[in-house]
């Protein structure tokens, strides 16, 4: 991942920053410059909840190159409330343990590493509550 791209996304990846529409209240994560619900362009900063529920999941067994060492690993779409869902890896959870409806908590973790000894990229993962 290129440096400008990585730094640009720090507010979302590290601080869970989202944009709440001032007109209709819809929360956009990642932030947007126009509300997909009402087309307003006025937002206030907010954060997404760090607790949620697994709405669906899978276990990645054939992984992209930079994740090969970690496979198999579960990935989930987590509903964190306020109409926001996020897709993330599930940490501290075996492939057989994950279930739809499970309660999880978002945490700040290492997400990927570019090659052996390469740059480490961080972000959020969820862990069982």
């Amino acid at each position, binding site marked *: 991942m290129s440096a400008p791209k990585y730094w640009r996304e720090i507010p979302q990846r590290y601080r869970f920053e989202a944009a709440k529409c001032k007109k209709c209240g819809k929360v956009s994560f990642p932030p947007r410059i126009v509300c*997909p619900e009402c087309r307003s362009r006025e937002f206030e900063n907010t954060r997404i909840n760090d607790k949620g529920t697994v709405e669906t999941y*899978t276990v*990645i067994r054939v992984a*992209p*190159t930079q*994740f090969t060492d970690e496979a198999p690993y579960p*990935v989930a779409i987590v509903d964190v409330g306020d109409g926001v869902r996020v*897709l*993330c890896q599930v940490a501290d959870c075996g492939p057989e343990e994950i279930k*739809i409806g499970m309660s999880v908590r978002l945490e700040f973790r290492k997400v990927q590493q570019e090659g052996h000894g390469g740059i480490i990229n961080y972000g959020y993962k969820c862990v069982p509550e």
Partner: protein
Amino acid sequence: MRDVAVIGVGMNKWGELWETSLRDLIAQSALMALDDAGIEEVEAMYIGCMSSGLFTDQEHLGSMGPDYSGICPVPGTRVESACASGGAAFRSAYMHVASGMADIVMAAGVEKMTDVDGGGATFALATAADQEYEVYNGVTFPGLYAMMANHHMKKYGTTRDQLAQVSVKNHYNGAKNSLAQFRMEVSLDQVKNAVMVSDPLTLLDCSPITDGSAAVILCSMDKAKSLTKKRLVKVIGSGHASDTIQLAQREDLSSLKSTAIAAKQALDMAGRKINDINFAEVHDCFSIAEIMVIEALGIAAQGKGGPATADGTTAMTGKFPVNVSGGLKSKGHPVGATGVAQIVELTKQIRGEADKDRQLKKADIGLAQNMGGSGASSVVHILEGM
């Protein structure tokens, strides 16, 4: 808008075509389509291709396509909408002719996927999803569809066997397709016991990596009548819609809204209902995709795509045959070519020119549905024999 007909179709034999370059792939199908139409030239060329940049370090097929097809200086335009690139290219070519800007236009589609290794192909295909919020977190393309499958199974009781039945049916059909990449039948057990790619999808729930191309010639109806003696195949409906690029942001993880909208547009334009259609070629990139697509099209009720597959509704001999070609699963899935190959199949079926063992008896109106990403775009066309 002027009436437009498909007057020529071409498609090479798909597979791992190590000896055939990207430029020759395009030219092969382009020449076959010209021959089939009995013409030597077109006024414009569209080329559906998802990622010649990442697969072969080559953009600008809008120049390379006409050049190596022997029709330079005809204008070429590459159209990309991930795995729906072919359908989008066909739609652009259709509007080009419908507008009156030209009488005869080619829509081609191509993907050269085996010049990179498996990791490279996985990477290139993943660029159809949201790179920064999906791919970054380690999800793959099979992974996105697997999450839809688990959601659908939980919500509607869709079973593992019903998923597998999609692959069984499509391989049964594809085994009879002389141009298919994998001409073999598979059993329910083989599908279920194949290597797990992303739970619950095994390798045999997933479409393969394929080199291939396809091309069709569109022509204004007036001119078509004087050019060809073959049965004229008229484009009677066209629809196209998008959805959020991220799966997580969709209203419902168990339905394909973009496909439902595109289908409604195409059916309304054609003045038909789904039950007026005789057969369909749909985007079965994964087994769950076909189940969700037939629901979005209204071939099965929402949540009933699994049973409709298991009870034979969509079989070659069923009430509404789906993917008589073998679909992406057996025929192969060179992503940019897939949507154009669906039009090739519709045309051949309507003309009565499909491989003998899989020619439908009743094939006057067909529907093609081509999808990009995890359903973030969908293109639907309806063709009718005159």
